[in-house]
């Protein structure tokens, strides 16, 4: 029988002092564990990325323009909601084909495009005088996407020579129900015991019992991964982040419609504190990059600073390649900063000052063992 997924923690009264040493443990605690684990695994799934741009990206010689996020599926997620917004402008009234792709995932019917249209989507650009452009939403079936494998979720704009994407967004969808009893290998959570049931031992193949509670607890700790897609830029020689003119590690330059600037910014978010304050949270840092010369590599640097603390730098050495390429390394994020907040800055280097390093995507995805 399906179990409804809790939308908040704490479905039943809880208290450690109710579990007295030498006294039997009430099965009511098992019901509360089941409900809170259904919240953690089925409802508290994660946002993948959210970027809004000052304007769409102006004309390009290319026929399509791709922007990628990095994504590692949570075990409970069955659907990823994606949303894009296209800007107004000279393209008013024209169809603007748009697709979203992820290996092993498909757009769900009735929406084979992002607004219910057949794929590739052809939303009509808003009038130039429009005040608001509506986001276009679609749903990706990710049930066949491997859990815990980092993949590229790519938004593709197919029209050449006109602006693309005012914003992109992706998030895992919470579940309404789970069925761990009948479908223990594909569903998350624990079949809820009634208050008159004993909590049984169970086994690895059961959707109930203590073994399932503990495996679900471990999964909630290490498989529910925070995603911080920090850089999501077009895979395009003009609009990706660029490092050039020096072989030293330094700041990237960014071009948007309002001009080119040197990116000095620090991005911030709150890190989970799982163990002691001195124990960092483990992340994978992934980038999508290319170089202007296949024979010239470089490096990209992530500088991690807990708020109020000391900075640490991490470098990925990049081989020269003229194709957009994924590279990664492990990075610990400290939870010792004020309010557990960490600051992240990016910099890079190219091994020949006459060449260029392009960075289109940079993401931190939690990777606890």
């Amino acid at each position, binding site marked *: 029988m399906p179990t409804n997924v809790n939308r*908040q*923690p*704490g479905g039943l009264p*809880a*208290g450690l*002092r109710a579990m*007295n040493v030498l*006294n*039997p*443990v009430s099965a009511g*605690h098992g019901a509360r*564990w089941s409900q809170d*684990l259904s919240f*953690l695994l089925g409802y*508290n799934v*994660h*946002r993948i990325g*959210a*970027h*809004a*741009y000052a*304007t769409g990206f102006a004309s390009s010689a290319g026929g399509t323009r791709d922007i990628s996020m990095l994504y590692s599926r949570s075990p409970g997620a069955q*659907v990823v909601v994606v949303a894009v917004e296209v800007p*107004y402008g000279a393209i008013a009234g024209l169809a603007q084909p748009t697709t979203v792709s992820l290996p092993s995932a498909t757009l769900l019917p009735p929406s084979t495009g992002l607004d219910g249209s057949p794929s590739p989507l052809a939303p009509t650009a*808003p009038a130039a*005088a429009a*005040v608001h452009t509506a*986001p276009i939403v679609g749903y990706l079936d990710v*049930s066949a996407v491997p859990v815990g494998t980092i993949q590229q979720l790519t938004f593709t704009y197919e029209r050449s020579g006109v602006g693309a994407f005012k*914003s992109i*967004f992706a998030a895992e*969808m919470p579940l*309404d129900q789970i*069925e761990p009893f009948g479908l223990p290998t594909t569903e998350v959570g624990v079949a809820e015991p009634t208050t008159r049931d004993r909590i049984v*031992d*169970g086994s*690895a193949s059961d959707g109930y019992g*203590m*073994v*399932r*509670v*503990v*495996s679900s607890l471990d999964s909630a*700790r290490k498989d529910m991964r925070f995603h*911080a897609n*920090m850089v999501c830029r077009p895979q395009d020689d003009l609009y990706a982040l660029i490092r050039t003119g020096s072989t030293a590690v330094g700041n990237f330059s960014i071009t*948007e419609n*309002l001009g080119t*600037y040197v*990116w*000095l910014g620090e*991005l*911030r*978010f*709150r890190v*989970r*504190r*799982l*163990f002691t304050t001195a124990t960092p949270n483990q992340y994978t840092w992934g980038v999508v990059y290319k170089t202007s010369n296949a024979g010239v590599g470089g490096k990209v640097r992530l500088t991690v600073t807990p708020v109020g603390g000391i900075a640490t730098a991490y470098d990925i050495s990049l081989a020269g390649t003229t194709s957009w390429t994924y590279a990664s390394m492990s990075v610990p994020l400290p939870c010792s900063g004020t*309010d557990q907040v960490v600051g992240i800055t990016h910099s890079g280097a190219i091994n020949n000052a006459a060449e260029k390093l392009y960075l289109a995507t940079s993401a931190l995805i939690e990777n606890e063992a």
Partner: protein
Amino acid sequence: MTSSRVGMRYNDGSGTPSQYVKHPPAASSFWANGDALDAGTAQDVDQNISHLTAENFRPLVEQPGPGLLADHTNPSNLWGGLADLTGPPGGVTPDALLAVPWSTSRPNCFRWGPFYAIVDNDSPAGWLTFRKVQFDVEVNTAGSELKVYVAMTTTPNPPSESYIDGTFQTMQSPFGGGPQRLSTKMEPTPPAVAYAGTPRTCRPPTAGLNRSLSLAEFWIWMAYVNGSAGSNTMQSISAFEVP
């Protein structure tokens, strides 16, 4: 955690941070040996679940830029050309919420979403509401002052139509303020049950299980008014849930 929904943890109220307690892996015979569950082990499991719940605050927005800021020294740059919208009459100081057109057609307005809400934050009035969101921008104001407006809404429609009480905030960088971080906390106050849910698809067809659910959602908005021509920049935007 400012939620009464989170269970107890070992160090609650002690001043010492709580933490996850390591336990034997699920595959260990410790868990399936036929013995009655002892209270100490049950307490470990219980407080670990509570700890994971208490720590699960999500990152929402982290992105570069937008770099050089649009020039609003002439109000027509802010309001001109937008259907059905006009700026405040000359000489009138606008209400902060109406100081910008909140038009995503403009480079000074940004909207992120749809985020689904987790409604487990205790409001001062005693009901559960949306989680608090910290909003940070890094700016460099070499020229005139810069005002940044942020808000959360429950629909894609702009804050000037409706926003979640407690979330509309104004940040201001003074003239020639140089590099600085502007930070504010959006603290929703209304009961989230007051907002109609949005139906969303949550799984492919699966026998016997609901394919959709109705979610309380929110959108994050930011807009700025830049009183300088060509010199002020914004280097980064971050938003994340906080206790």
